[in-house]
């Protein structure tokens, strides 16, 4: 397999470009999108690369169509992705729920910009965090990942495809305008350096007849692929194990939604990833995700120079959320600070996790600039 970009070496590329290259190395062969700042460069890269790897990249009439096409492509057997920003992500919400309900592996990238509405197209924000988790209606479960460097944008995109395939679920990558357009050194590995996961396919006709069953007890049903010999019914209506609508029996809904939660939450130790920095002896903790984590690392270094025992917990997985690790942290430290580029979203999750065992303070910032390390440090030293 020849790739349309150099592999096994470092390059200097944008976050958007890193997402596109990672998707291709993870096996993505279908992209559908609608251009929007600051995610358009993902589409541009996919439009260029896809024909060169026998894949397909198409522009749809809008973001509703884009995610619908991606869901369809996934049922046809392709690993599929779309990318957008705030306004487009809002349009995708209904079909994101459809992907949850039909257990369709897809990757949706949201490069966050200032909102609501069309807001600040060229400026970064983290205002869509709760929307990524709870934006579509109804009880649901999905996975949300959040990179802070261009290398992480690359690595987490590969991870997003692997998690989507393994758990038959949509995975959202939450980036931001700064990361999308930032260029940074990134190592693009050789294909044999990457672990690539493929979805479970039905082993036999019995498994194929129950595309929403649980034959292996892990909550993840094998996925029959359209055109490979089985007749499969796929619907957003509440359905039984065969996929047919059963909308008036409470226990069918309970069993289906229960399993969709369980297949993620039973494996959350494998799904959740985070990094710590100088946390072992910390009495002050900073909890952050995405781009602002980089300011937080610097703030921790500056605080340590001043003799403040500060540390950082950087969340790479935003959902499912590790409430237990936050509670353990709250037992260790005196106070937790949550810097985020919104008026308070991650803060509420951290406060719930802390469970009253440490004070939690929000360091909110909106307007389109990443917190400076000084802003975080000054709030901590007061």
């Amino acid at each position, binding site marked *: 397999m020849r790739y349309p970009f150099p592999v096994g070496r470092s390059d200097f590329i944008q976050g958007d470009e890193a997402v596109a290259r990672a998707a291709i190395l993870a096996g993505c062969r279908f992209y559908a999108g609608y251009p929007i700042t600051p995610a358009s460069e993902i589409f541009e890269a996919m439009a260029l690369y896809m024909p060169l790897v026998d894949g397909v990249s198409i522009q749809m009439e809008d973001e509703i169509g884009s995610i619908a096409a991606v869901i369809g492509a996934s049922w046809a057997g392709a690993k599929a992705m779309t990318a957008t920003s705030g306004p487009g992500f809002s349009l995708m919400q209904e079909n994101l729920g459809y992907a949850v309900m039909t257990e369709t592996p897809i990757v949706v990238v949201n490069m966050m910009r200032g909102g609501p509405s069309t807001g600040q197209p060229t400026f970064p924000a983290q205002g869509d965090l709760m929307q990524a988790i709870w934006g579509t209606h109804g009880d649901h479960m999905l996975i949300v990942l959040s990179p802070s460097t261009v290398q992480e944008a690359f690595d987490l995109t590969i991870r997003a495809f692997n998690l989507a395939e393994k758990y038959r679920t949509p995975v959202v990558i939450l980036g931001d305008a700064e990361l999308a357009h*930032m260029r940074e050194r990134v190592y693009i590995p050789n294909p044999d350096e990457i672990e690539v996961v493929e979805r479970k396919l039905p082993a036999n006709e019995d498994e194929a007849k129950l595309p929403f069953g649980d034959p292996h007890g892990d909550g993840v049903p094998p996925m029959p692929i359209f055109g490979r010999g089985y007749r499969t019914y796929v619907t957003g209506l509440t359905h039984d194990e065969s996929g047919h609508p059963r909308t008036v029996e409470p226990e069918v809904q309970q069993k289906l939604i229960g399993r969709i939660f369980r297949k993620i939450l039973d494996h959350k130790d494998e799904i959740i990833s985070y990094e710590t920095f100088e946390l072992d002896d910390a009495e002050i903790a900073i909890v952050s995700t995405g781009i602002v984590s980089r300011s937080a690392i610097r703030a921790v270094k500056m605080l340590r120079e001043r003799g403040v025992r500060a540390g950082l917990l950087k969340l790479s997985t935003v959902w499912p959320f590790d409430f237990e690790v936050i509670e353990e942290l709250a037992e260790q430290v005196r106070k937790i600070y949550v810097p985020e580029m919104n008026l308070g979203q991650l803060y509420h999750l951290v406060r719930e996790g802390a469970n009253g065992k440490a004070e939690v303070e929000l360091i909110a910032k909106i307007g389109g600039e990443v917190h*400076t*390390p000084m802003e975080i440090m000054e709030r901590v030293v007061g």
Partner: protein
Amino acid sequence: MRKEVLFSGFGGQGVILASVILGRAAAVYENLYAVQTQSYGPESRGGASRAEVVISDEPIDYPKAITPDYAVFFSQEAYTKFLHTVKEGATVIVEKDLVPHRDPEFEKRLNVIALPLTEIAEETTGLSLTMNILTLGILVGVTGIVGRESIEKAVRDAVPHGTEEINLRALRRGFELAEKLKP
């Protein structure tokens, strides 16, 4: 070693391309860590444009410039807005003809190189828009922030196909000017 470089001017002057080339030279050809960021409005030409490059021999945490060690000002607006953010002793390159109103008092604390960059670019290559590459030549020649060979390779990678030689001519003219300007 954390070095911060600020490029600023208006859209269409190649501010962002210059920053990308410098970052690429450091990251790809010198095996250093480098981050390039940019800030601009929705318009592609005419609006204020600002780009930053941070270069380091260790992983870069905060990706933006805090107090630039080196700065380039291609417009009065950029000069007025950002001059006072640079570090004391910083090397600063100013497009003399586009920045008529200067701050001589503040400039005493800096190493200022003020030249008619657009005019020199036009004389050198016949194209005023090679001014950004000429400036890169001066910056690299004077400061040695990356090697000359690295920046030449990065220019070849990043400029539009077919314009490599003309841009390298601008770059090398920048190197020549730097020789005369070195303290």
